[in-house]
């Protein structure tokens, strides 16, 4: 038997080992619970952050079309080159190559990369043609990649500059209709989650976080051809009269749609750096002008509404001046004893002032206000001005007299056009719209009979010998009704010796289809509306009625003006469906 110095405590050693094992495993369990349960979110997030990425799916902005489907603003894809500075700096030897390909200064590029070395994303060059971007990517420089973006192009350039506005470099609307309809046009970029490897390549698509929603297209009420005509004629008139600025608006009477809206000076939305900010203003809706004599149409509407005045009620304008509380109102020529129609025909300030004096100021204000003066038209154009119409309490007898011929209040050209459209539309006013088919509800502002009377009076301005003299607003074979106006430019509370020439009119007078409003500010030399603004109306409308196939007032006029043509047809043909609508057979380039 082997002698043992001490009996071995097998059992207790076993307990010690077991105890240690137990401790170790519970430590593991505790650690596991800590990792898997207690701090799971943190680790999961950190893990995902190392390989999961949320990527934006770019969407293109909707196209803007004119009423005939011609594109006016189109977004096309471009590529922006971006870099991950730390990664590029690791391969610093390739920076010269990159700078050359991207057309950047080498030193500047290096400096930029070092400065932003704590970032992971910087743009190197934005909005490159996809082919040029490919040339840079083909160099295969680590840390350089491209991103899809969109750039907006405006094929019509200056002609549509003000109406459309423009977008910024991120393709968001900044001005004009681009801004007004930004939410509609922009769409929503999608987001997808992907797994990326260390080099940033997409390995797998995990899920679509949000589906991309492309921008919606917008069809405007503007007709590109009429817009161009208005642009061309307005520009020519500005050059001819050395005027500082001008605006023209054309409305479609039955629907209230804006067919053209142009201003001068204009700007090219494709290249708008270094453009005087005032050139970018859509003066037809943001700038106000005193309506001057064009306002007389509404003064007379108010007078006819009282019932005290009929179209042939005599008005004594002798001796061509009228003094009221020391304020003298004068006519250009003493027209003597005329009637209410004559006040419009000869644009008598004295007559308008005397008629206004017979009405209550509340009634006059009410009629002006009903025609939309002093309130935004509701066209939705950003920055639209409501104009200014003083409240009746502020009117003294002199103010009331001057308001009667359009001084002491102001309005945007669009407001004046809207008011004339109400006269053209049998007294029903419809807010103008830029969107095709978006008919705003109409409301009756004046009795249809009064509107018809006014149209007849306005026609005398164009046709009467020695009348308002707006013969230059005439359009061959069509009857035109309209009113000229001349307003002094108000500067800093006083009037300067500067004028604005206005003309507001409608065509064809017997059943108006189009209303046009022309404002030419500060013409040099001649400044009467009849000489400056009316010819623009005549020339633009001559083309517009042809483009829109508006039938002439009556076909006999046509034959009388063109006996040659009348002889060419033997008998008028009747279409199988028996409609007798008249139409010109040509809608080609409008004549000058």
């Amino acid at each position, binding site marked *: 038997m082997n002698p043992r110095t001490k009996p071995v405590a097998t059992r207790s050693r076993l307990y010690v080992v077991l105890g240690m094992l137990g401790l170790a495993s519970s430590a593991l369990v505790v650690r596991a619970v800590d990792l898997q349960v207690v701090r799971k979110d943190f680790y999961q997030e950190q893990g995902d952050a190392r390989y999961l990425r949320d990527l934006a799916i770019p969407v*293109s902005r909707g196209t803007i079309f004119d009423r005939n489907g*011609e*594109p006016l603003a189109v977004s096309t894809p471009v590529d922006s080159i971006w870099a991950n500075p730390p990664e590029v700096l690791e391969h610093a030897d390739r920076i010269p190559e990159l700078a050359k390909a991207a057309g950047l200064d080498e030193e500047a590029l290096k400096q930029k990369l070092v400065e932003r070395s704590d970032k992971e994303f910087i743009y190197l060059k934005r909005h490159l043609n996809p082919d040029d971007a490919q040339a840079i990517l083909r160099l295969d420089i680590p840390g350089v990649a491209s991103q899809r973006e969109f750039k907006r192009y405006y094929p019509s350039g200056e002609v549509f500059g003000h109406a459309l506005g423009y977008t910024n470099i991120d393709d968001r609307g900044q001005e004009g209709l681009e801004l007004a309809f930004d939410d509609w046009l922009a769409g929503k970029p999608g987001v997808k989650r992907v797994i990326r490897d260390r080099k940033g390549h997409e390995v797998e698509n995990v899920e679509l976080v949000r589906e991309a929603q492309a921008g919606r297209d917008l069809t405007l009420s503007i007709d590109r051809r009429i817009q161009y005509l208005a642009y061309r004629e307005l520009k020519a008139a500005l050059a001819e009269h050395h005027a500082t600025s001008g605006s023209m608006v054309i409305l479609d009477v039955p629907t209230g749609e804006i067919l053209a809206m142009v201003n001068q000076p204009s700007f090219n939305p494709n290249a708008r750096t270094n453009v005087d900010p005032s050139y970018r203003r859509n003066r037809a809706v943001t700038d106000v002008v005193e309506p001057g004599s064009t306002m007389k149409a509404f003064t007379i509407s108010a007078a006819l509404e009282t019932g005290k005045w009929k179209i042939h009620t005599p008005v004594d304008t002798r001796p061509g001046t009228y003094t009221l509380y020391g304020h003298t109102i004068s006519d250009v020529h003493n027209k003597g004893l005329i009637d209410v129609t004559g006040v419009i025909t000869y644009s008598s300030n004295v007559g308008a002032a005397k008629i206004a004096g017979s009405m209550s100021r509340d009634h006059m204000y009410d009629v002006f206000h009903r025609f939309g003066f002093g309130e935004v038209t509701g066209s939705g154009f950003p920055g639209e001005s409501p104009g200014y119409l003083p409240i009746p309490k502020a009117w003294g007898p002199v103010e009331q007299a001057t308001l009667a011929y359009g001084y002491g209040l102001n309005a945007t050209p669009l407001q004046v056009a809207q008011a004339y459209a109400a006269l053209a539309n049998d007294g029903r006013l419809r807010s103008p719209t830029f969107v095709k088919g978006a008919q705003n509800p109409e409301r009756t502002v004046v009795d249809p009979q009064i509107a018809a009377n006014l149209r007849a009076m306005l026609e005398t301005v164009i046709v009467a010998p020695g009348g308002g003299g707006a013969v230059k607003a005439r359009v061959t074979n069509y009857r035109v009704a309209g009113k000229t106006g001349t307003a002094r430019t108000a500067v800093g509370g006083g009037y300067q010796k500067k004028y604005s020439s206005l003309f507001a009119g409608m065509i064809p007078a017997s059943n108006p289809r189009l209303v046009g409003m022309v404002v030419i500010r500060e013409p040099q030399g001649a400044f009467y509306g009849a000489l400056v603004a009316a010819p623009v109306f005549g020339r633009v409308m001559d083309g517009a009625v042809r483009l829109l196939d508006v039938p002439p007032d009556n076909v006999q006029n046509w034959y009388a003006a*063109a006996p040659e043509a009348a002889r060419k047809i033997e008998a008028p043909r*009747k*279409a199988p469906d028996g409609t007798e609508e008249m139409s010109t057979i040509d809608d080609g*380039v409008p004549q000058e």
Partner: protein
Amino acid sequence: MKIAGAVVLLILLLATLASALAVVHTRQQSRSLFVELSRLGNERDDLNFEFGRLQLEQATWAENNRIEQIARGKLGMVSPGPADTVVIKR
């Protein structure tokens, strides 16, 4: 009794195996379909962009001012006056 248990176990084992393979297959299929979907999506986008570019080009060529210059200047075209226009009943 024992044999029946083993059979059931075997069936379950096979079913598990089959479903595992099916998962692998479906996953593979979904990946390749997704790749195809992305490819087609990109193709559609590219075609749309191309269409946009062509529209833009067309609009640029059809710019009214350019047409007018060519028609009046180069081709010597004029607008028909009232004497050259016949109104017909339609």
